[in-house]
């Protein structure tokens, strides 16, 4: 699908712009085939799709861990590539939470959070593990914010699944991010914990004026929390909707009701 994006490249409001992006893990199969996205600054953007639809690949492209085989991506006007020095600086403020969370198991919760501050430390300070006082205070403040007070000295392998997610969020917030990328951060969690975590991100997003791009498996959660939802199926964006309360605006086929969207999503899930 080669959709022409409806944005101008000089628009200051667009923080992420993907134009006709194709990518593959091997030479034969495309993980993404011609996806275009345009995300406004401060948006809570959700990407929904089944397993293997290419939604995690989208996040990896945004933080430069992968490069597209065709098409262009701009993150705040820069092309993501983790080997590029200029973009590496930008990575300091892109919070990325992979599905596996990527916590360092054998260090404490506080140390995991402090990892987010590493780009602000000199090599010597990092080797000697001498974090400035204000960074430690900030880490403790975030620790409290995510509801983990009193657990700072616990090793990361000793805490529960929900707590691990909070640590991963805290590490990302410690980066003082402008963009937050989270890959199925609440999947496999019970409804109550999932909502607590989502509320936490929503709260942080508003306070820090973050642009959050979250990959979800669950359409209900995406519709509940996001301003925009893109649906990815087999590497293509098949739908992009704006959400305002219970009103949904479809940018491709006109307005749809939540029931219609859900029905469509459920049908996809059954396939």
């Amino acid at each position: 699908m080669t959709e022409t994006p409806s944005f101008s490249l000089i628009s200051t409001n667009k923080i992420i712009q993907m134009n006709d992006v194709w990518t593959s893990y091997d030479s034969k199969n495309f993980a993404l085939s011609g996806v275009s996205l345009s995300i406004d600054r401060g948006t809570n953007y959700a990407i929904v799709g089944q397993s293997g639809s290419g939604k995690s690949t989208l996040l990896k492209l945004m933080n430069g861990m992968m490069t597209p085989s065709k098409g262009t991506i701009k993150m705040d006007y820069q092309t993501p590539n983790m080997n590029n020095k200029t973009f590496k600086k930008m990575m300091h403020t892109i919070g990325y939470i992979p599905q596996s969370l990527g916590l360092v198991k054998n260090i404490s919760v506080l140390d995991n959070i402090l990892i987010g501050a590493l780009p602000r430390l000199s090599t010597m300070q990092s080797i000697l593990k001498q974090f400035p006082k204000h960074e430690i205070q900030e880490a403790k403040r975030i620790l409290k914010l995510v509801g983990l007070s009193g657990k700072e000295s616990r090793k990361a392998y000793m805490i529960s699944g929900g707590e691990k997610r909070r640590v991963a969020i805290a590490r990302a917030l410690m980066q003082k991010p402008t963009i937050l990328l989270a890959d199925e951060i609440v999947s496999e969690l019970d409804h109550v914990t999932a909502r607590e975590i989502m509320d936490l991100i929503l709260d942080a997003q508003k306070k820090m004026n973050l642009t959050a791009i979250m990959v979800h498996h669950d359409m209900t959660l995406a519709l509940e929390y996001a301003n925009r939802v893109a649906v990815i199926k087999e590497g293509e964006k098949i739908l992009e909707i704006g959400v305002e309360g219970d009103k949904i605006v479809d940018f491709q086929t006109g307005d749809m009701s939540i029931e219609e969207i859900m029905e469509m999503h459920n049908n996809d899930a059954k396939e």
Partner: protein
Amino acid sequence: MTPKNNIVIAIIVGLVIVASYNVDANPVDFAEGIPNLGVIVAEIFVLESLIDDLKYIPTALWAMLETLQMAFIGTVIGVVIGLPLSMLAARNLNSKFVYAPTRALLAVIRTFPSILWALLFVIMVGLGPYAGVLAIVMYTIGFVTKLQYESIETIDSDPMDAVSSIGVSKFQLIRYVVLPESASHLLGQILYMFDYNVRQTSILGIVGAGGIGFFIINYIKFFEYGKAAMFMLVVLITVLAIDWISVKVRDKYIIKSQHGMDVKSK
């Protein structure tokens, strides 16, 4: 058992027989040699000489202490030099242009057994324990780095990717992800290396590189089997003790932390 497996087994058995013939490894000769062992044992257990040999226990203990110190210095310095090299040799941390030459260098170092390193250093720095220490350093560098870069390569890639995505430096990645995640393995390997080095250092004296082996080889040369046996007994007890201690340390601090990773989520 598939026919293919049978063929492989037949080939291996065939090769062992051919090779044994080539090196004159005849089981009959072994059986015939057993009585010679009896002669040595009989010489060792002459009561008078046994009592006489007890005088040499302090010498044996001092020689063993020297051996332990050599092994200790060699292991520590070998690890200090080896650890950065293993970081350079790990494929998940470096490009091919860095890890390939490092691995080649380490492979060359590993080619020589410690006794050959000891010979080389005896020529360089003269007879004595210093040559032995240098030999152990070289052997440790070659051996421990291989164990360590292999452990580093088995680290879970998730935290590596997540932390790399923050744009941290290589030093920071090593300090905050690689070392903590592989620490239990690395420590286990260092303990194993020390354990192994004590055994090795015990024989370096054969080429004049100090330690208890120097005494053992000389007693054997002069047919003083009783003294040689007593010195060997000291080595045996020391090695067993170190083995026991390192098992305890591994159980208490290392295995526990590895199991810790499996603690179930609440």
